[in-house]
């Protein structure tokens, strides 16, 4: 029996499965009828221990006259208790596929049964005009509010990638409807369009009763760059990796690996072991500097600038490490289909090992000092609770998830590259709060150092690149996964003609973490809002200025970025005091 067959036979008992396709050893796609879609996804998700990893809408009218939806489920067990995990040999990816006829672009919403699908289904409408019937929250997600109503950018015949619709005059621009709680005495605190810690755009509405946040809503995607459109039918595989790298400024290497490995898996290319080991090394270096950045910012946003400076001093060593092994401060410009373009020399490895010793020693020293500081710990503990049931419903990933006691780690559940041969622990904490998440990050730093050491030790010789002899097969598709610092990245590639990409779906880790953030805000104070967002390590951006609106008196107050930052750090002079 092959991986995933047991799940499929269970689905078959209730639902007609039209077609079963196997992409790789652990990736299977089943085609079901449009109306059976929600039930099929629900069965796999809740009954058999799946997690929603991605959903790909695809315009396949050129291939078979229909649109298609692919719900990617990662079968790994519910993980609500320790026993509730599938044995390693059963873990796999199951994709539920359904066709949607071009003349009737609707499908029954899966969100009613599996809440994790909410963002994906909103995006499916924005990009393809596919309407999820019964979707509880059909607002726009990706495209701006003044985007033309009938222009769906990712339809193959919709527009050229260079097309920019004329902007609408700001007076005619439709307002985005935020979800507002009813009741007297609710104060609306907009947070945004720029985040305090990460300096990236995102607009948050905090609804407060006094100082306590009772609900929140947010609008993101101010920086949507249309990369998926850019890649389609245009970029070749020499360029794809470099484009994917530019998805993120911190964890870009993980995107490049995800993207290229999806392309490699779709046609069954095996890269040399040395390249695999080096890919793992670079991914772990990226985790080192990203986690150090986040722990540093979590200290800074609570006013501990001293710790922030020390952590950034250590972070500089990790950047030097990257410089040594890849020739650039970032690990970029290296990944191509078939391997890696740059090899490491013996002296570089020797110097890297010396640097690792310094990093490890100083890291432990600084973390102990931070843990000694009771004021710091009190700001982190009990803040931004991610409830375990909410987590189960929304499929978050990364340290966000592992801080709530779920041992979800792509490196362990779906080992890629060299990870089959390495020994490492998954860091799990059970506090569900900011402290747990930062603590998970710290433990992962130590694990990463150990992983890099093991890789250097076990790295075989030989070449780092092969020429992909297999020709690209049009229509072949596969998933590429990897554990970026913020969680699991999923890339999905369908090959097109002439060595080009037909459809590239890039799902960054934070995409799965956003929908549950609303629940994490509830019950916390305004001063902790920035910290909670920071603890997700979001890939976007907090607050250039904050407007505070008192619904009762209709008074409003505009706070500058500095005001809120000062309040977050010092907890003095409450911004609502003089309202």
């Amino acid at each position, binding site marked *: 029996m092959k991986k995933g067959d047991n799940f499929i036979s269970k689905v078959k008992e209730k639902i007609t499965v039209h077609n079963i396709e196997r992409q790789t050893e652990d990736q299977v796609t089943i085609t079901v009828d449009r109306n059976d879609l929600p039930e099929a996804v629900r069965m796999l998700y809740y009954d058999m221990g799946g997690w929603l990893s991605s959903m790909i809408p695809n315009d396949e009218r050129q291939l078979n006259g229909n649109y298609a939806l692919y719900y990617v489920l990662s079968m790994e067990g519910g993980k609500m208790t320790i026993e509730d995990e599938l044995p390693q040999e059963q873990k796999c990816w199951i994709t539920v596929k359904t066709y949607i006829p071009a003349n009737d672009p609707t499908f029954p919403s899966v969100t009613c049964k599996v809440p994790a699908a909410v963002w994906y289904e909103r995006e499916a409408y924005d990009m393809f005009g596919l309407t999820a019937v019964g979707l509880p929250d059909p607002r726009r997600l990706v495209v701006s509010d003044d985007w033309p109503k009938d222009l769906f950018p990712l339809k193959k015949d919709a527009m050229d990638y260079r097309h920019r619709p004329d902007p609408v005059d700001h007076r005619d621009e439709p307002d985005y409807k935020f979800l507002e709680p009813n009741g007297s005495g609710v104060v609306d605190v907009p947070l945004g369009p720029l985040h305090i810690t990460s300096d990236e755009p995102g607009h948050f509405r905090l609804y407060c009763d006094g100082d306590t946040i009772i609900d929140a809503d947010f609008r993101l995607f101010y920086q949507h760059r249309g990369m998926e459109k850019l890649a389609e039918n245009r970029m070749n595989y020499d360029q794809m990796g*470099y484009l994917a790298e530019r998805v993120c400024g911190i964890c870009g290497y993980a995107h490049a690996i995800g993207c290229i490995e999806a392309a490699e898996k779709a046609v069954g290319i095996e890269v040399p072991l040395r390249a695999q080991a080096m890919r793992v090394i670079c991914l772990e270096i990226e985790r080192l500097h990203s986690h150090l950045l986040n722990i540093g910012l979590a200290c800074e946003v609570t006013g501990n600038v001293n710790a922030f400076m020390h952590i950034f001093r250590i972070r500089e060593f990790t950047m030097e490490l990257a410089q040594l092994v890849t*020739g650039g401060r970032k690990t*970029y*410009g290296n990944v191509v289909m078939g391997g890696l*373009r740059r090899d490491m020399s013996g002296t570089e490895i020797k110097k890297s090992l010396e640097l690792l010793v310094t990093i490890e020693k100083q890291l432990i020293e600084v973390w102990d000092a*931070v843990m000694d500081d009771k004021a710091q710990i009190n700001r982190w503990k009990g803040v931004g609770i991610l409830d375990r049931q909410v987590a189960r419903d929304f499929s978050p990933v990364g340290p966000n998830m592992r801080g709530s006691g779920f041992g979800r780690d792509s490196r362990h559940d779906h080992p890629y590259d060299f990870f089959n041969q390495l020994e490492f622990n998954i860091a799990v904490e059970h506090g569900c709060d900011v402290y747990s998440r930062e603590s998970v990050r710290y433990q992962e730093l130590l694990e990463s150092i150990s992983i890099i050491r093991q890789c250097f030790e076990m790295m075989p010789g030989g070449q780092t690149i092969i020429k992909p002899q297999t020709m690209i097969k049009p229509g072949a598709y596969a998933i590429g996964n990897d554990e970026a610092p913020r969680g699991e990245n999923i890339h999905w590639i369908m090959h097109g003609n002439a060595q080009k990409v037909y459809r590239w779906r890039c799902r960054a880790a934070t995409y799965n973490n956003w929908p549950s953030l609303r629940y994490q805000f509830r019950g916390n104070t305004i001063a902790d809002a920035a910290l909670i967002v920071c603890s997700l390590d979001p890939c976007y951006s907090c607050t250039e200025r904050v407007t505070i609106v008192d619904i009762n008196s209709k008074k409003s107050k505009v706070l500058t970025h500095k005001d809120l930052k000062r309040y977050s750090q010092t907890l003095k002079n409450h911004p609502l005091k003089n309202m």
Partner: protein
Amino acid sequence: MKLLDMTRKYGNATYNYPFEPYVVPEGFRGKPAYDYEKCIGCAACAVACPSNAINVKLNEEKTKLVWEFDCARCIYCGRCDEVCPTNAVMLSDEFETAVRFDRKNLLERGCLEVEYCEKCNKPFTTKKLIAYDLERLKRVGWDEATLADKTKYIHTCPECKKDITVENSTQYFVRKRK
């Protein structure tokens, strides 16, 4: 307090840059350096460049072949370095690429002499590329006559070469039929 002790222990963590140079490790991938003397205008780098930072085009008057590098687009992957047959483009250890006020200051250009086709007089490649080819062919070790025969069309553009080939083969078949 522990943190303050640590500050004393490690002292100054910053470099004195820009008052003293920052030393990069060996094998650093910095700004591609262009050597005009070595460049033959083969455009291999322009073909390989994934971000279109390097362009090789004829100028408007079609008198010069212009090699142009836009540092603002460069992603420092080093593909150009890999493919260059004469090492005219090589990654350097330079990382200071800031310019004042105008992005155009990041452009780097090299104009190469073009070779005109001896039949149709259209520009088709650079003089230096022809010279490079001839020199490489000489090293093969053919005698004078063979070399002359092999390089008969070296000053002819691909279009004209095609025409000549077609003409020659037609004549061959016509002759045969007679």
